[in-house]
């Protein structure tokens, strides 16, 4: 059972949350202006790394915040978000 660090409520057990997937994916601000390939990458393609992963979580049974967490997908360690490197 993971402990997810909610920015408002602090560390809470994972079953209070929903997972929102890759947190580096940004919706194009003007979808009509992006290429088919870029749109397709936004909708479908994910880096899916084995290791540090910035991801969205939703405190569904809590404060309803959406926020980013950096977590190692191999060890499940929660890492500091500030360390996020390109």
């Amino acid at each position, binding site marked *: *059972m993971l402990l997810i660090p909610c920015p408002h409520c602090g560390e809470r057990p994972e079953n209070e949350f929903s997972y929102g997937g890759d947190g580096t994916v940004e919706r194009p601000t003007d979808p009509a202006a992006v290429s088919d390939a870029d749109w397709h990458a936004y909708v479908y393609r994910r880096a899916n790394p084995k290791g540090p992963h910035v991801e969205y979580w939703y405190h569904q049974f809590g404060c309803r915040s959406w*926020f980013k967490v950096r977590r190692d997908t191999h060890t499940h360690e929660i890492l500091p978000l500030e360390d996020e490197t390109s």
Partner: protein
Amino acid sequence: MSQAFRLSEGGGIDRAQLVTFTFDGRRYQGYAGDTLASALLANGVRLVGRSFKYHRPRGVVGLGSEEPNALVRVGRGGRVTPNLRATQVPIEDGLVAESQNRWPTLDWDLGAINSRFARFLPAGFYYKTFMAPAAWWMTYEKVIRRMAGLGKPPEHEDPDAYEKRHAHVDILIAGGGPAGLAAALAAARNAKETGKRILVADENPAFGGSLLNGPAMIDGRPAAAWVEETVAALQALPNVTLLTRATVFGYYDHDFLTIAEHGTFGAARQRLWKVRAKKVILATGAIERPLAFADNDRPGVMLAGAVRGYLHRYGVRCGDTMAVLTNNDAAYACAAEAKAAGMAVAAIADLRAEPGADALTLAREAGIAVLPGHAVAGVSGTKAVQGVRLRKLNAAGDGFDGPAMRIACDLVAVSGGWTPAVHLHSQAKGKLDWDEDLAAFRPGRRFGANVSAGACNGTLDLAGCLAEGAAAAGGGIDLPATGSDLSGAPHMLWRIPAGRGAKRFVDLQNDVTTSDVALAAREGYRSVEHLKRYTTLGMGTDQGKTSNHHGLALLAGATDRAIPDVGTTTFRPPYTPVTVGLFAGRDKDAFAHPVRRTALHDWHVAQGAPMTDAGLWKRPQAYPRPGESLNDAIRREVLAVRDNVGLVDVTTLGKIDIQGPDAAELLNRMYINAWKKLPVGKGRYGLMLREDGMVWDDGVTMRLAEHHFLMTTTTANAAAVLQQMEFLLQTQWPDLKVFVNSVTEHWFAAAVSGPNARQLLNKLTTDIDMSNDAFPMMAIRQGTVAGLPARVLRISFSGELSYEVNVAADDGVALWQAVLDAGEELDLTVYGTEAMGVLRIEKGHVAGPELDGRTTADDLGLGRMVNANKDCIGKRSLDRPGLNETGRLQLVGLECDDADGRIPFGARIVAEHKDGAQDQLGHVTSIAQSPVLERSIALALVRDGRNRHGEHVYAASPTADGGKGAWARVRVTGPVFFDPEGERLHG
């Protein structure tokens, strides 16, 4: 001959409390505090089970959770439990236990014939045979399944309850032996100021661990007294919780551990502790290793530590005359203490040419003969040990020198050294290091907030265990100690020489022998995981506690590798088997999932309406009158709405309150259609896509004020739509000034539908002008209905003049009753979800079955709703070729040709009336028996359906009627069957 092997004194049992139990139908007596194993041994019962494959006779080997052999079926009726370890079952009056995996009796087991054919049944034999003829496998398998399994499963539902508990602690200590208790003492002392919470759990009925297995002195007192004092002192502290018969079985992410506690907790039989710990001290001890010699599985061959444990914990002699086989010093204490307790010790055979000096002194003083460099070459007796043959090992240890000595004995105490119980350390993802002195793995780099202390860390001497335990908890206490050491580096001889054909068992439960390991290596199964899987080594209910280590050492030898190069298999939870029902807890039967009820739930039930599940909601299907069939009721309810007026509970639709200056902009981005120009007081039907362009949700959204909207969603997607809006607002569009909130539970909603709907509502409201001009279609009005504050929406799912009245959930019953009262003279009819479904299908409205996640707005005939002048979620995906080509499934209506025919549920659309392979044109999504059209109709998704109107096809259900099949010839039509111009709802 009652309890002939019981000592007259000693042990933690209560001789004043006689306990009577039965084993295989025979009555025995033991004492309170006995386990089933100790009581059977006290009664001289040696044969307690049969092995899995060869059905070899087997006896008790160990003392606790490591026991591989003594598995029994315990209990009666619904409480019968198979595969329990006799070493962990406390006896109580009337306990009924029986042996397993034998027929007809334990003593005379027909399955033992397998033993005769053992040479034809090596590891993995089943992969090499049973292949011809191919069709016979199912027959072979029937026989195999008859041989499978250990105990018989329970025949009845489990009458017991299980409980779950959460704990958040500063320190969790797993294991209450010397290291664990020392840690607890130190932790308690260091937490005196802070009151930090400490939880100590031990799998045994009493704390003390190895301290209970023999004499020792701690802090100037006998160990037993020290344990008693320590436990009493800890118990007195409010911040310390002590659990016995409580196994820490799982170490999960982020220092979350689980404990299975046995006992009685109110009505519950066991309790699952879910513990989040800031720090974990692992003090789980070590497991003694057996040795692989010829016929090492005979009843009476036991672990030396267990023999010692039975002596001191239970006052039980495990035999009259004992021979010892050891490779370390620890077993000497066992021999000396056994002799002091009145047992004869025939000899100690020590694999080492030079046993430790202290050990030799101990043996000499006790008058016990020691045979250095000797091993057991064979065991006589099948259902009980009758004697052993001892022989001198050659220098290489791969053969014998000199003659065999025959020694009569009924007990062989074996010690092959100690394997640290690193399970929890490993479950936490800690690494293991090979320790040559121990000939075992010990904890290496750790992961998580844990530390291993004592024997599980490879520290075997008592003083060391105490010191490590205390240090792990911050130190500050000093506990001098002597005695009870497990010390003595083992001299490992993983395979003791044996004569041809003799079996040396590595895994007693699964009957894996040294030859099986060699065979696996020979055939290329060189990974330790391949070995495990090919031979089944370590895959029994003991999870290889006494066998895995040996197996991988033998594999290393057979493949010329060092043991650390072979590595271990992965340690997985649980540490010991855990009752399935404990994980389920109270989440069973009616409580398996939550129930959502509308404010009118009790009223629906009181009318006798059959209730159906819509997700977690309960909804009334229809309200049959006495003697009326469900179908007749549905027909009556539909016609009432079409001809007069009906009332239905529509609470379950999701409602989301949207407020803020950018509310309309948010809707513009969520829905495919445009929202900014919607006037206050009006609503609009909206369609929402997923980002891949597929239709996701629909519903009517009303503008209550310039910056205030009320959105309705489908029942199924209510939570997901809110979640998606929150996501977009918080992460992608933080600049939008909007708040969204679910208000589904705040409201009760009822729809009044039918030509007389206005007339009925006019009787209930004075402050809302119900006239067509003042209150047009798609408008919302706020006022009072039946004196209750209400929002009234003029929207229609049925295609009739229809109003949805929303009042506070608490007012639901009052509103409903008021509408019923007012409707009496109009002959108002209450209708359920089935009639609602028929009404919407007749009108061609799409719902869940049509919004199957694979349909586009265009597929549903709603393509023109997509606003060209703005973006919305999913719009960018719509121009992909796959979404625009011909051949897509499109929404159509189907009318059954035969007025008495029925379109079957789950039907596929085909051109021909035949079973078997043929091209499928599409499928039926929703079916209805239409009272208006007087025939069976359906909505369907059909390939190029819009170009097929007027065609005749078949709705086919070959699986219907138990395989007889059902075909209906149907005509393809538009999806709107009734009032396509919508005259009625505007009327």
